[in-house]
């Protein structure tokens, strides 16, 4: 099952290192319990830890994406703003997978699948035994739905104040972090349901 889903900013590889990697949206499905730790954890401390774990993942994804962009010789091509409504060729976007060792930053070892679209990074933090192929296609699906529905390609649109749309997409296509085997028709049916409940 998916432990967390996050969307964050991606900076160009050759940029002067200004600004930070910002997590624009994150959802942790359920919380890791730390049964063996004798100290009474403040709830606040747990929340702080969770946020920092997500930020650590976002930073790693950003650097992996930048390295891949450099290696494939396309540092800035994908980061140009697209003004037209053409669908972004997601299968050509940079994507990858890497492992997180136990303790770094999550208690259990996890795997991260990521996808970079223009200046946004999407990532799924998976348990070690998840179906990687399904996770890849789910991530692509989520990215496409969010890009389409929120019209994230048009300048001036942002997802910062529209987290409910992201929640709506997740509750249908990745409910509680459950990866679903959805064929095309199921996806269409869910999309229709979503569009009906969520006015653009």
């Amino acid at each position: 099952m998916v432990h967390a889903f996050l969307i964050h900013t991606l900076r160009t590889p050759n940029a002067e290192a200004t600004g930070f990697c910002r997590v624009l949206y994150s959802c942790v499905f359920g919380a890791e319990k730390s049964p063996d730790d004798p100290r009474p954890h403040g709830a606040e401390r747990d929340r702080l830890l969770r946020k920092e774990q997500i930020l650590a993942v976002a930073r790693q994804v950003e650097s992996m994406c930048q390295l891949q962009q450099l290696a494939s010789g396309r540092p800035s091509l994908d980061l140009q703003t697209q003004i037209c409504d053409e669908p972004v060729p997601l299968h050509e976007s940079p994507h990858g997978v890497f492992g997180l060792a136990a303790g770094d930053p999550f208690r259990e070892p996890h795997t991260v699948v990521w996808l970079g679209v223009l200046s946004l990074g999407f990532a799924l933090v998976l348990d070690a035994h998840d179906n990687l192929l399904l996770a890849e296609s789910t991530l692509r699906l989520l990215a496409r739905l969010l890009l389409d529905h929120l019209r994230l390609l048009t300048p001036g649109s942002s997802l910062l104040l529209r987290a409910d749309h992201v929640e709506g997409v997740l509750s249908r296509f990745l409910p509680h972090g459950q990866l679903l085997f959805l064929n095309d028709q199921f996806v269409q049916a869910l999309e229709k349901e979503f569009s009906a409940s969520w006015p653009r």
Partner: protein
Amino acid sequence: MFSAGEESLLHQAREIQDEELQRFCSRVSKLLQEDLGPATVDALQRLFLIISATKYVRRLEKTCVDLLQATLSLPTCSEQVQVLCAAILREMSPSDSLTLSCDHTQTPHQLSLVASVLLAQGDRREEVRRVSQHVFTVLESRQPEGPNLRPLLPVLSRVMGLAPGTLQEDQATLLSKRLVDWLRYARVQQGVPHSGGFFSTPRARQPGPITEVDGAVASDFFTVLSTGQHFTEDQWLNVQAFSMLQAWLLLSGPKGPGLPDAEDKSELEGSTLSVLSAASAGRQLLPQERLREVAFQYCKRLIEQSNRRALRKGDSDLQKACLVEAVRVLDVLCRQDPSFLYRSLSCLKALRGQLGQDPGSERALLPLAQFFLNHGAAAAVDSEAIYQHLFTRLPSERFYSPMLAFEVTRFCRNNLPLFDPQLLGLLKLSFPNLFKLLAWNSPPLTAEFVALLPALVDASTAVEMLHSLLDLPCLTAALDLHLRSSQTPSERPLWDPSLRTPGSLEAFRDPQLQPLFHYLLRTKASGSTERLVPLYQLLQPMAGCARVAQCAQAVPTLLQAFFSTVTQVADGALTNQLALLVLERSDALYHVPQYQAHVHRVLSSQFLALCKQKPSLVLELARELLELVGSVSNIQSRAGMFTCVVWAIGEYLSVTCDRRCTVELINKFFEALEALLFEVTQSRPSADLPWCPPQVVTVLMTTLTKLASRSQDLIPRVSLFLSKMRTLGQNPATSSVYREEDAEAIRTRATELRALLRMPSVAQFVLSPSAEVCQPRYHRDTNTALPLALRTVSRLVEREAGLLPG
């Protein structure tokens, strides 16, 4: 796309002060009580941003929090508002101020939202168990075909993942029974569209049958690969049930944690009649067994359905994912109940043939290999071909796919304990092929390979592997050229199109260089090594390529991992070979910027480690070391390495390290080092001084002194030389080469060493201490401690002197 406007919005959200926040909370509370329209949505969206933008806790007013919780249970409220309330509460979690519970929820959808908040609390107050109880209550009370059970299954799945021990036996049985219904008995007609619309005819159209992905009418029961225009509730549940099937089987199986075994099951599992399943034995199946049987049927059907040619790309992708999952589930089934093995094998036999034909289908090769690894022995099946494909063909054909590269590496890493000696041998021999995955995808795979490398190291291939590791960036360049020359122009380039290297490409195609490239791109350890020096020059233009540079950065880490393993398995002869290799290769590396410097650092420290492990190394490699220190050019090309070698000579060339050390040998080294030191420090009228780092000068002086302390005839020569060093830096020839601070340091050291040599036995003690002196005990034990002995002796001498007359 992340514009300045968004950056400032985030900034505002973070910087909002408490007072303003409380005012905003009051506004939100008011809106939640009065009107749940667009204004509320807007306010809630802002509140969500404020909470989630910072990692520090934001304190909200109690009324506001209570209202947010209450809204979740309202019977009539738009989904948007409820989702936002749940999201805000979840973002605040874990929090001690929540009083949410499942009891007031009215629909399964609300229950799912409340559960998302409760499960985020970290199980401080047994929230997981309570959510689980509640869900099962709902599940029990409804018929399998009841409406709206859809939101509940994912909650159950999450609960199981978080706290497997909270499920009771009767609940597990209920779930297994329901899963059987949903998986096997979902209807095969399409659903009716929800609303007919204004213009629909009263006589509703009969719903058509479900179809397969290739358009044909469904031939058997409904699965995730069945399509239609509209779906019924039980068909949705079918999809969800399969999605959570593997996790549930693992959890509820005989080896699953937290669930007691039913006594009847153990009879069947111990049974030697492995070919007959329980069904044919004519006994009523327990719910868990029934589930397994249904799961098997489902997977078998999926495998058959994956053969069909899908009309849409999305379905074709899903077929591949289903194939992977089906094999994984079969693996679990066979582990839990060996009676499935026979039937599974016949299912998978056809699959083996198909894999590799269709691009993208190789992903299923991995779970298949896992299946045979787990069950191959029991099934007495020869799975050699699969492993050959996995280790030999796959990496060399598809090294450029980051997902496949990761999965293959993980497969090797996770299954090392399961590999039998023959398979492990095959893995070790395939290291050149596996290195291709690393060379192309170094950032994500470096950590994986550091963990995998110890298993690949073998005494028989260690030398070849070290060469391969040092040539890894070269391999990256060669793989790039391989892709350039083999891909058709119409395909999207996998190599770096910003780099144009016509010269290197020509070299790649040159028939004279074919054997070298062939060796570099080999798939199996060849047992011999080829010197790739001719390629370095030709591949020089590629050294600026980002991918090559990334690979070069990974090499030092891998070298450390290699050496830490190889030192444990190397015998004396191999240690010598490796040391020689280190010396030789430090001068023969592919020129990637900064690569040489980093590799030298690792190789120098590893050379010293080898010497420390085997002190007689210096003696056994005397000839090669003499050659190395015989030429000034070696200083310039690899100063760091040179320093270590000279230091090692000083440390280990003595009788205490190896009895075979003779005075002649010490003299020979002495003369070579003395000549070298002369060349770099004493100016001659005919030539300029060659460049030499001051550390080399000092280590040469110290080593000469050490050798002299062992062969004391040499002391006068050294003292004379050291006294000449007093003028270093004080004449124009030397002051142009050495800076004043460095010359000063050298002069000081020379003086210290001269002073030490005036007391030869002390010099020997300090510079060539025997093994016991190096133990701390020698200096702490009151019987042997040197300072104490000296003090005692001097006191005695003084007292004696006092007693003497005069």
